[in-house]
């Protein structure tokens, strides 16, 4: 997995609440058996019209946000389907961090497995950063994972909370399965004990 340390980049504002994973990557793009190549279809139904042409008003189609690496979004981002295609599509487009007041649980977890940092901040902070993002491509935001801060283009800084294990894995690009495999002995002994206690499982 790609490491995440510090990122300074363009942030795109998406103030809509309850942006669900169907919006992030509509189901017709889930028929792939690969993880890559989904970026062109990120937000497909908001981004293109029926004929497949770009809708100029959509934020990521605007020239100043085409290279966005950060999204500042409304409440409850990533709700709905568990599809990991959502973070795959964000990542493939180039988004490395999403900032909101809240995220749906499964989406939040899925981000960390793909080198994306979801950041939860209080409403006031998100409001400030949303305004900052609206300034366009000259306003570059900085996300610093090590110090757990987001800094707006005019230097206003906000700290965010993060689970220490998730942070460790993201900063070092660690693969969960490899880490868990190191604890195989615990799993073996749990399995042995559980098969005594609940043999019907």
């Amino acid at each position, binding site marked *: 997995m790609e490491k995440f340390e510090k990122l300074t980049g363009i942030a795109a504002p998406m103030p809509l609440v309850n942006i669900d994973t169907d919006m992030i990557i509509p189901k017709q793009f889930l028929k792939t058996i690969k993880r890559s190549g989904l970026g062109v279809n990120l937000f497909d139904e908001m981004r293109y019209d029926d004929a497949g042409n770009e809708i100029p008003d959509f934020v990521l189609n605007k020239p100043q946000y085409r290279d966005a690496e950060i999204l500042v979004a409304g409440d409850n981002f990533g*709700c709905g389907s568990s599809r*990991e295609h959502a973070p795959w599509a964000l990542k493939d487009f180039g988004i490395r961090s999403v900032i909101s007041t809240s995220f749906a649980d499964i989406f939040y*977890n899925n981000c960390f*497995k793909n080198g994306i940092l979801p950041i939860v901040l209080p409403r006031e902070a998100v409001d400030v950063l949303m305004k900052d993002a609206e300034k366009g491509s000259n306003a570059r935001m900085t996300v610093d994972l090590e110090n757990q801060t987001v800094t707006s283009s005019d230097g206003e800084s906000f700290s965010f909370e993060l*689970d220490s294990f998730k942070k460790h894995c993201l900063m070092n690009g660690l693969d969960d399965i490899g880490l868990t*495999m190191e604890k195989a002995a615990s799993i073996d002994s749990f399995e042995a004990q559980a098969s005594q206690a*609940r043999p019907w499982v």
Partner: protein
Amino acid sequence: MSPKTLYDKIWDAHVAHEADDGTCLLYIDRHLVHEVTSPQAFEGLRMAGRSVRAPDKTIAVPDHNVPTTPGREDPKNMTEDSAIQVAALDKNAKDFGIHYYPVSDVRQGIVHIVGPEQGWTLPGMTVVCGDSHTATHGAFGALAHGIGTSEVEHVLATQTLIQKKSKNMKVEITGKLRPGVTAKDITLSVIGETGTAGGTGYVIEYCGEAIRDLSMEGRMTVCNMAIEGGARAGLIAPDEKTFEYVKGRPHAPKGAQWEAAMAWWKTLFSDEDAHWDKVITIKGEDIAPVVTWGTSPEDVLPITAEVPKPDSFEGGKVGAAKRSIEYMGLTPGQKLSDIEIDTVFIGSCTNGRIEDLRAAAEILKGKKIAVKRAMVVPGSGLVRAQAEEEGLADIFKEAGFEWRLAGCSMCLAMNPDQLAPGERCAATSNRNFEGRQGRGGRTHLMSPAMAAAAAITGKLTDVREMM
């Protein structure tokens, strides 16, 4: 011993390892797999030279994008990309030696219907699947939740999941339901009350007289939508109804093992003074038959209400409501019961079980549909067979419904069953997101009885007027 909730008890019985910071490896008893969220996980295993740790506890079934029309055993009758995914699942099931129900098997169906039906889902278990509606299995008092594809791979390889414990939330539905009010109305009303993020960070336990009174089918409907309220999982404590449902199922324990299992299952309830981080109480008698008007499952109102005015909301929801109403082609103030529909969809893991079909057929008996298209998609081949045996299929067909083969179908419209742009559907499924049932399609969520009533009148209808 300090008092525990049901969630605490199941959690404690499955912790295989706990790190100092509270991060746990939770042992997984059942892993359900389908064709859409698993190919990349199996590919990952192959690339790393890993095997499936517990193939005996892993069950696969194609459901999300299979056609629901006859002849689907032949890949030529599927779109090319669907056929590739189904073929990949066939191959992965064979290569890794996991249990498998191919489309040609009468037991095939929606993964969350097949699991309980075959007795794979049992009280006190941990159950996961690369699908958010895994919450359904919580109806058995099993800790069940959806996971992403990387986690699917993690469970395949290690039979564990890296987890931190959620908080405990109790949702109590007291007293009795009024006539015409169903499990679907309960679960939608709860989301209407808490919002789609109200359960974030929690595992919900549903309890109270109205929940106890529900059949297992109804309880599955309630737990199914826990995720729509943002919760990690929904739970209902097992009781005699649960044991009765489970007994004799193909993969349920038998003989001495059944006795041993029962002894443990009977301890699976929340202790009297267990600690709850959040409690919500709703009176059963206050719940009405509801429908959704917008594009979020929290956009719920009684069928007797009107399309709301966006200004009646607060914050970001004002804009969202405006957008929803526009997308849905509605006018604020319009009566919900005046909304005309084109299509009716009865099915999905929320309401595709035998009891749901019975409820709809009851309303449809001897009547004809007044919509362009109506379809019933039974949740599994076995539900379909039973409905045929009970004569329900004939009622549907005579009314003008299409009688389909099992699968997810128009719940998410990955297969050919889709709404055209602007088409409006009365659906028994669980999501009314923009484009969920087809690009530009408009979805109103409701119970099977309400969907049947809408099929007859051609508009959203209060089912109580037909009872």
